[in-house]
């Protein structure tokens, strides 16, 4: 702790002149394609969720999700489909990133689950998270209801063009107020979200490295470098690299909350334009669930 003046830490404009944000890169037709794909991904996740029953393993669930997506015309994956059951939804006892991969955990009555998939069609990408439960789970019900506040908070803060690391901090403060814990910090890079772009059409489709599509890695690598040069990051975390206003484009946002052995998240695309922001689609399972209540 020091009392030395800390201008470098303050949020005031830095010594380097502010760069003008890049223009919003997508046409309305592009957005329609992204929206259709996100709908498709959620439809597949919902159908797998309906099929889930006690006894099914994570691996079986992830495989089925992949099959459904491929059957629906998906050509490649931003990352391979994931499925987590029970306390693995809250990433408890995760020591290595390998533990994110679907494993042999069997679904039981009263357990919660999370399905996460990121299909790519014609270079358009969706990245969604679907949380559900089998049977009765009051803790799940409570977090599921509270998730609504996070969706509203994030949109409000991004609309106000607050630096992304501060939005992350605001989400942390709400998590602390609710008494949950931040589980998205378990993701590589502690990210609550990441930018989604049209992937380049090079490299073999459907080939994965460490769970990420080869094309994804190419695109992500290029983005990381080019954005870094601009003082921005395509990854949204709480560190200094996210100390910039939201970059226009599409962001997959995934606040992931945990309480004890129950973890919940949603993941969907946020549209950030030069001067506004909105969720790409409001016709999604978790939003419908809040509206029914």
């Amino acid at each position, binding site marked *: 702790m020091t009392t030395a*003046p*800390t201008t470098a830490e303050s949020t005031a404009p830095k010594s380097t002149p502010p760069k003008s944000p890049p223009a919003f890169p997508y046409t309305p037709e592009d957005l329609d394609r992204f929206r259709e794909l996100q709908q498709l991904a959620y439809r597949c996740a919902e159908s797998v969720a309906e099929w889930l029953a006690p006894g099914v393993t994570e691996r079986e669930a992830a495989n089925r999700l992949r099959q459904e997506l491929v059957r629906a015309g998906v050509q490649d994956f931003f990352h391979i489909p994931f499925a987590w059951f029970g306390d693995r939804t809250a990433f408890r006892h995760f020591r290595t990133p390998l533990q994110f991969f679907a494993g042999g955990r069997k679904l039981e009555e009263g357990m919660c689950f999370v399905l996460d998939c990121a299909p790519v069609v014609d270079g358009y990408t969706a990245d969604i998270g679907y949380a559900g439960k089998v049977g009765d789970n009051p803790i799940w019900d409570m977090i599921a209801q509270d998730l609504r506040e996070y969706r509203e908070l994030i949109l409000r803060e991004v609309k106000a063009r607050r630096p992304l690391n501060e939005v992350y901090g605001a989400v942390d403060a709400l998590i602390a107020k609710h*008494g949950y814990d931040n589980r998205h910090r378990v993701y590589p890079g502690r990210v609550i979200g990441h930018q989604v772009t049209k992937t380049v059409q090079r490299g073999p489709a459907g080939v994965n490295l460490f769970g990420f599509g080869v094309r994804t890695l190419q695109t992500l690598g290029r983005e990381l470098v080019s954005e870094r040069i601009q003082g921005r990051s395509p990854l949204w975390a709480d560190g200094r690299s996210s100390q910039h206003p939201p970059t226009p484009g599409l962001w997959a946002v995934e606040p992931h909350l945990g309480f004890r052995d129950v973890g919940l998240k949603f993941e969907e695309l946020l549209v950030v334009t030069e001067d506004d922001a909105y969720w790409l689609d409001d016709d999604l399972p978790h939003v419908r669930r809040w509206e029914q209540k």
Partner: protein
Amino acid sequence: MTSRQQHLTVAGPSGLPLSVHIEGDPDGPTVVLVHGYPDTHRVWDDVAAELAADHRVVLYDVRGAGDSGRPARVRDYRLEHLADDLTAVADAVSPDRPVHVVAHDWGSIQSWEAVTRPGAEQRIASYTSISGPCLDHVGHWARHRFARPTPRHLAQLAGQAAHSWYIVAFHLPGLAPLAWQHGLATRWDTVLRVVEGVSARSDRPAQQLAGDAVRGIALYRANMLPRLLNPGRRPTRVPVQTITLTRDNYVSPALTEGLERWAPELWRRTLATGHWGALLEKGTTVARMVREFARLHDGDASDASTADGGVRGGSGGRSPRDRLAAHHEGGTPLPRSPRRLVVLTGAGSGIGRATALAFADRGAELVLLDRDLESAERTVELAGLLGAAAHAYQVDVSDGPAMDALAAEVAAEHGVPDVLVNNAGVGHSGGFLETTEAEWRRVLDVNLWGVIHGCRAFGSLMAARGEGGHIVNLASAAAYLPSRMLTAYATSKAGVSMLSDCLRAELAGQGIKVSAIYPGIVNTNITRSTTFSGLDDSEQSAQRRRVSGLYARRNFPPEKVAAAILKAVADDRPFVPVTVEAKAGRLLGRLSPGLIRAAARLRMG
């Protein structure tokens, strides 16, 4: 007592007549009360009167005392025979249903014999033991301590030896009988008044007391040496409740340490009184403890006899224990301890909330205080999800009269707390010359006065109730690690540390334990509300963000502090540094105080 009182003579195993009294509600659960030395069943008068309202109370004079038979030989007083007597009484008064046994002193020693026999759980539904250990357990207890002679173990051995002088005296030929026959019996009331501080009741003529007392010496001679020197392995499946008396002159509280090894279903209770005070002065409290324990375990017998067939007795309905079991169907075990009432300050966030939830996990009932009522209510909601009853109150801990009023309200609505956690605190950073008087007041008011008010308001309730308790005060590693940047905060926390040590000494005699916790750098929102001297608003918020970031990167979760607090309460630990830096700083400060003082000059918080 009541018109239902009934007297009968039961034949003991070798035809020995045992004088048995029955009173109370004939349809209630049967409770058998076993007295000690040199008493008769009359020592239970207060407890029996209280229990009679809803129990069938059975009292008997043990062999050699009161109106029961008086064997002459020493070997007739062996524990096997005494346990047979208890079984004979239980069989006679309640042949079909197991009984609840409550015993004191030698009554408790001999009941342990019955309770630790194989299959005892078929006949004994629960056992409340007051000031009388199982001699075999004591033998193992002493062996374990001799084998591992740590300073603590040696102190426990010395402590119990100091309590046991009279046992040696009872083994000397002629001495004890002479004493009883020539004056001790006639002056027994005076002895009880002066040594034990209780007003005794003359329940029999001195002549008879002398006779009982002389015969009772055989209890010691027949059992003490064989059991202590060659202890057997005596586990039990009967649920056991021990009531530890804090001012017991004969049995030290340390004797029950590790008792779970033999009696896994163990409840521990504490009563701030002496050896006889428990029955003669606190009969009402003892009766309440017996009632609570018996209620939890009533109906076990029918379960035990039908468990193999998987059929539950339908006639009696579901016992409270069944309901509890059903409540905990998730696999949570039955309550490991009496339901505890825990009061926490600053329970709306951080360590307070995490501690509340950790106690909720253990089935405690919670009273949650916070300046921000909404945050405390949120903790209530979360505790509810974990199955705990919790209540939120708004209070500013630095407001003495408000704390007193709240304590009275809590006592009226929920009872006297068993555990108090003084957690509320504020952070402050800044050099001494930069810190204003108002800032000093705020820090001391909350961090030190808040703890003082908490201890005073709730500690006096605990002391008045006389059943012990535990006070946990949240200090800080800053209490022993000076820093030029934390003058006010460290001063307030050093005050909490010394307060805790003094209070621990003062309240020890009343069974109230005090622990001070020294967390270190823990990721909570205290940094989001920390104030900094000598900085303007924007600098303050920048500094706050910086420090919060530092604490977040250290990433020590409040849940681990909560676990340390629960452990401090379970093991009665006085001084608990939590994080590595808190432990290392403590060690360094003791090895080299000069180094710590030099480090205090660094500008770091």
